[in-house]
């Protein structure tokens, strides 16, 4: 697959990351070559400890590789300064964590405004309005003044997704975004990701569950820090349809 400009949005060359814990070297990912084009929806899978999070953090510019190269939208990230790195996180990438990572005691609206605060490229006049708009997109317009502790896990994750969307990045990364959610909430979140992907946003996410991975368009499987499988999904599922099924089951149970 290729995006409009025919360019990879993500391109890693021989990318490796080794953690040192005391004297012990822990190679978490080993010479990964991965290309992802604009508009793709990729699910990264693999056993626990296979290096999924490490890879996501590198792609998300939250961490730096031990060796190898990473091109984001054609930019060689290893050549960037710290501030340019920060700008990339702010402008090009929306990152969604398994544990939400929202600011405590801070309203949904203010959490979503946060990336706008650090946006030097476009000084937005009315950040609240912009934040409200994306909160509406994730279906949380009636919860904007709630703080994280007053929201369910699914709602917190929606706030986190809204935050990742607010600077209109072309790439959204999500590391086990539904890891803490029950299956209905998870399907709802996937429905949201599918909607965003339909709108043209590239999505890369990590999931444990094969059923959920089928909501993506492509699956990349890791084992011991290496890619062992990389394939397109033939029998893709649509989360909105799954939601209808779940609702019908619920109605049937009640009856």
């Amino acid at each position, binding site marked *: 697959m290729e995006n409009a400009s025919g360019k990879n949005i993500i391109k890693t060359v021989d990318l490796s990351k080794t953690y040192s814990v005391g004297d012990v070297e822990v190679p978490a990912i080993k010479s990964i070559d991965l290309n992802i084009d604009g508009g793709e929806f990729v699910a990264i899978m693999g056993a626990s400890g296979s290096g999924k999070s490490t890879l996501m*953090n590198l792609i*998300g510019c*939250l*961490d*730096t590789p031990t060796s190898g190269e990473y091109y984001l939208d054609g930019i060689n990230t290893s050549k960037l300064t*710290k*501030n340019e790195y*920060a*700008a*990339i*996180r*702010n*402008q090009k990438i929306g*990152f969604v*964590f398994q544990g939400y*990572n*929202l*600011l*405590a*005691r*801070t309203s949904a609206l*203010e959490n979503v405004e*946060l*990336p706008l*605060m*650090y*946006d*030097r490229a476009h*000084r937005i006049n009315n950040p609240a309005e912009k934040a409200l708009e994306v909160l509406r997109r994730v279906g949380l317009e009636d919860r904007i003044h709630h703080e994280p502790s007053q929201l369910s896990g699914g709602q917190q994750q929606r706030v986190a997704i809204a*935050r990742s969307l607010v*600077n209109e990045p072309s790439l959204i990364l999500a590391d086990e975004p539904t890891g803490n959610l029950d299956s209905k909430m998870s399907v709802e979140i996937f429905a949201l990701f599918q909607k965003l992907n339909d709108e043209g946003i590239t999505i890369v996410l990590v999931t444990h569950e094969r059923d959920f991975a089928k909501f993506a368009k492509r699956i990349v499987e890791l084992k011991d820090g290496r890619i062992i499988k990389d394939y397109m999904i033939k029998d893709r599922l649509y989360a909105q349809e799954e939601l209808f099924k779940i609702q019908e089951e619920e109605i049937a149970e009640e009856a």
Partner: protein
Amino acid sequence: MEAKNLLKVALKSILKSRMRSLLTALGIIIGVAAVIVMVAIGNGAQKKVEDQIASLGSNLIVIFPGSINSGGVRMGAGSINRFTMKDVEKIREEATLLKGVTPIVRTGGQVIGGSGNWNTRIEGVSTNYLEISNWSLSSGEFFTEKDMISRAKVAVLGKTVADQLFPNDDPIGQQIRIRNVPFRVIGVLAPKGQNVMGADNDDIIIAPATTVLDRLLGGRYISFIMASASSLSQIDQAQAQLVEIMRKAHNLNPGEDNDFTVRNQAEITQAATETSQVLTILLASVAGVSLIVGGIGIMNIMLVSVTERTREIGIRLSVGARTSDILIQFLTESIALSIAGGLIGVLLAFGITFILNEYTSQAAYINPQIVFIAVSFAGIIGIFFGFYPARKAANLNPIDALRYE
């Protein structure tokens, strides 16, 4: 980030964690207020001592029997040649640099009169006592030279004694019995308040020295001699002259030690202020300790919240904050908290000082230098411990800051 946004983020963060902010500021508030008040109390005590010494008399020189070494310890050895009225006469005749001289014959005893009795201090003095001791009468008159010669049984009451014996009547003209000897009250002294040691200056009866010696004590020794130099600039010469006169009066050979001690007001003042300076230093050390304790409090709260704050920093970094954005935010926060805490601390100190001055006998004077020192010390601690952990976190990879526990 723009300055306006920065301030907003910092203020929001302060308001969001009210408890943490309050505790942080509280350390600064208590530290600052404690230091200022403690030193103010020390200064107040010192000033009070100085005022009281000034009220002792004008250009005062005091001569005690016996030699006292420079450290102020009375030497046991050596002859103690006690003073008599003859010594006073000698000084009166020969001294040329004195405004006046008076013997002080000190005794005490039970006084009966008016509506009750009272135990008080009795001082026999000469007619120029009021001038020498910087005192005045509130009513009646002082005794005269004639009373001195005739050993008249007349007395001037201190205010406390007058109030005790004659709470409702005018004491002037009334009879009192001092140690069973009848005296006529001829005057009442103006109130003078407490002396340096905290004793009541007004708890006293003044009578002619001759009367006290003859009719109350039946002796001839006077307790000490008080003189007043003609002017402050001549006090040292007057003192030297007094030493010569006394040596001659006591027939001391050259080389022989003085059998008396002369002290002037400046020396007495110095000795007393040295004592109160020790007090000030003591209070300041206590205050310094409270400032340090306050500082440790600030530090603890900052360090305890470091986990939460490191995650916050991780979140901010992950959505695109620069290291400098984080640093400025935390710096702004800790400066704001320190300034607020410092200001409240200063206000609190002023309030406590005001209450002390208005409603207690404890005088307190705020020293602007100490205000400055206290505020800057607390501020530096607050800013350092607010900023330093943040600086460490802001230099982490976002993912390491997020993972911090």
